[in-house]
């Protein structure tokens, strides 16, 4: 079985292997090796037989090829209505073919399937909303990604991403020690501005266990400080875990099922150890989907839920505003045309559409908020979901995919886009860089801190 030194069927298991992969700038050697990577057909078919179950079998078989999913897909719309971009076609020509051929596919097929799975679908699940049979092509592409990963046909950045989770339990090379140091640093830096501010670590039995995104620790730790400030101002009893603080899961994008499970179990272990009343995750869509929505099933939890009630950051914000724990200074409400990016992963796929709008009602002056069209569960993906944002070889496709979101934003006339999701935030940042439409974009935390009233006893003297 021909395999490369970098591109192969083996998951990353050592730091050395991860570094070797990282040293291959842009994945040049990796993709070269991929061209001659053999397909282990017995393994592929054996995996399908064990894991391809009645729900997906039914979906593939009952698809009437009616084409009603076509217009729901932003890839189809921005690629001149190319029939090869119809969701049903995309899944039938990849996963469907693997099934029909009983796994008897070759290297060229697998590389085509890889491009289709990562550059022609972001697993946004919008097509499933419009299919008369309720067929969820996004879910099937997630499954296909797993088959491709097992055979070594996965984009270089995502092999690295899932490898990071395997080595560091985080999407980036941030160790638990570095996380602890960053918490200490941020608390020190902001303590005088917010007297009494702390970032409690490993507190047992707190009301809230806060989990976040490694990129916040690595590149913009202000986001951690902002979360701490808001919990502090709201008077919350909260903590972060010394280990198990990473909510995100690039392994889900990569289709690395084993690492998916390892990562969520690591977070659940922190919950079991610290026994908080509930977990609040940062402003990240896929992290919520991975750890709160899908993770329990990966971890084999019969309840279908994490060990404690786990909510997205917008749910906590809405609750804090509703209960008066956080109060917005009416004079400081947003008074510019502003719109909201509905994240697929917790709006369409977890029903939080009205929660997001409840927050808008508090922080935006009436008359300034403009909905995108379409919106809520019908909203389009940012264009960079499902891991597409970070994949170099598919940058051209990703940049084109941003056009739908660009035009939606332009149509609103907004100068500010609220994006309470890391992936959406990144995509909107990139679309501004690429297309220069003159917008700003923001997470919620920064906007809240600019507007929230500081309780009398917490005012800096």
């Amino acid at each position, binding site marked *: 079985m021909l395999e490369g030194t970098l591109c192969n069927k083996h998951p990353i298991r050592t730091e050395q292997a991860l570094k070797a992969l990282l040293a291959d700038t842009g994945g040049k050697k990796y993709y070269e090796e991929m061209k001659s990577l053999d397909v282990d057909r017995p393994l592929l078919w054996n995996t399908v037989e064990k894991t391809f179950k009645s729900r997906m079998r039914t979906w593939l078989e009952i698809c009437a090829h009616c084409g009603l999913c076509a217009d729901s897909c932003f890839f189809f719309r921005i690629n001149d209505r190319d029939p090869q971009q119809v969701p049903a076609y995309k899944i039938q020509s990849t996963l469907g073919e693997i099934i029909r051929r009983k796994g008897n596919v070759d290297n060229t097929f697998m590389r085509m399937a890889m491009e289709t799975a990562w550059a022609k679908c972001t697993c946004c699940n919008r097509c499933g909303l419009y299919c008369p049979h309720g067929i969820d092509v996004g879910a099937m592409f997630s499954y296909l990604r797993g088959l491709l990963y097992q055979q070594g046909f996965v984009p270089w950045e995502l092999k690295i991403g899932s490898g990071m989770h395997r080595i560091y339990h985080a999407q980036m090379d941030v160790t638990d020690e570095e996380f602890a140091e960053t918490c200490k640093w941020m608390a020190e830096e902001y303590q005088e501005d917010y007297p009494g501010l702390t970032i409690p670590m490993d507190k047992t039995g707190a009301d809230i266990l806060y989990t976040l995104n490694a*990129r916040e620790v*690595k590149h913009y730790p202000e986001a951690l400080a902002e979360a701490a400030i808001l919990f502090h101002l709201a008077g919350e009893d909260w903590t972060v875990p010394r280990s198990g603080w990473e909510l995100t899961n690039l392994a889900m994008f990569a289709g690395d099922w084993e690492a998916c499970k390892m990562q969520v179990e690591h977070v659940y272990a922190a919950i079991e150890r610290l026994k908080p009343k509930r977990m609040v995750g940062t402003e990240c869509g896929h992290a919520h989907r991975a750890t709160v929505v899908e993770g329990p099933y990966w971890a084999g939890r019969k309840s279908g839920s994490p060990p404690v009630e786990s909510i997205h950051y917008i749910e906590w914000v809405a609750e804090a505003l509703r209960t008066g724990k956080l109060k917005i200074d009416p004079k400081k409400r947003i008074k510019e045309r502003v719109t909201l990016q509905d994240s697929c992963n917790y709006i369409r796929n977890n029903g939080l559409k009205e929660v997001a709008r409840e927050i808008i009602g508090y922080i935006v002056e009436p008359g300034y908020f403009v909905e995108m069209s379409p919106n809520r569960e019908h909203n389009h993906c940012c264009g960079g979901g499902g891991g597409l944002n970070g994949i170099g070889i598919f940058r051209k496709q990703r940049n084109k995919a941003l056009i739908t979101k660009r035009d939606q934003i332009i149509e609103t006339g907004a100068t500010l886009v609220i994006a309470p999701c890391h992936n959406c935030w*990144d995509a909107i940042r990139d679309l501004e*860089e690429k297309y220069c439409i003159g917008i700003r974009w923001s997470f919620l935390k920064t906007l809240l801190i*600019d507007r929230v009233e500081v309780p009398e006893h917490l005012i800096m003297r």
Partner: protein
Amino acid sequence: MFQKILFATCLREACDHAARMAFDLAQKYDAHLYVFNVFGMPTHGYSQVVTDLITGDEVVLNEEYVDWVKEEIAEYCNQLLKKTKKYSFEVTIGFPHREILRFARLIDPDLIIMGGSTGDPEVSTYKRSIAGSTVQRVAKAAPCPVLVVGYPLPAFWGEYSNVVFGTDFSNASDAGFEFALRLLREQKLDCELHVFHALSDGVIQTGDTNAQEEIRDHIGKTKQQIKQKYDPWMEGLKQYFVEVRKGLPALEILKYADEKHADLIVLGPHTKKWEIIAKDHTSIFEQVIARSRCPVVSVNRFAQGKQD
């Protein structure tokens, strides 16, 4: 006075005068000089790509590129390298202000030196995602004094005739005062120290009549306040002056510094973290460093601990 100096540079013209100051100081104090450059900003989500902050190109990180950046630094510093052998080049990627602060936390320098604003539209995406200038953000949270040199130097360090210290009576101002005093004492400078305060328009609530009298009265009281606060520390200083004026603080400091032919302005920027990022808000400190013809030292509350 300085054993470790961190020169944070963008390798552009805006840093040229700061570079000269950094190497001069390293030579004068036999200090180790860390020449630090943040060359790339993370982009495209979790990818390994960064945007080169000078060229704007998308770059995939590898050792070769890092070596190339270090060669660029060596070329940028060129003649200055003759001044000292105790230097090292440090490069990284990230958001510049945060990485400068992270490195400062690691090496615990005695002084950070930076250039003026680049005013470069090429990095507009970065500027709009992280509002507030790099200098301003570093000055706010640096663990040591931050010296900003934006224009050609009127004098060498230690050859000053006039130092202006602007106070707003905050803790940060106390740290600034300590630094100014220490500079004068340790360097045995035979120069004038001007302690200055600007009363902003909102401070004085004048009635319709006797407005000028009320202002004069307020200025007199503020001068007394300054004397009470700082006199006990002035022992041995022969040339110490107090001045209070009413107006826009940044403008008044700059005007006064100009009148006194100041060689150095010392400030303790007392700005709440979130105020510096408010839209259209430019702090007094940023206005001063943008327009001052002499170097400006910012000393914050963290740096106060450093001096003890």
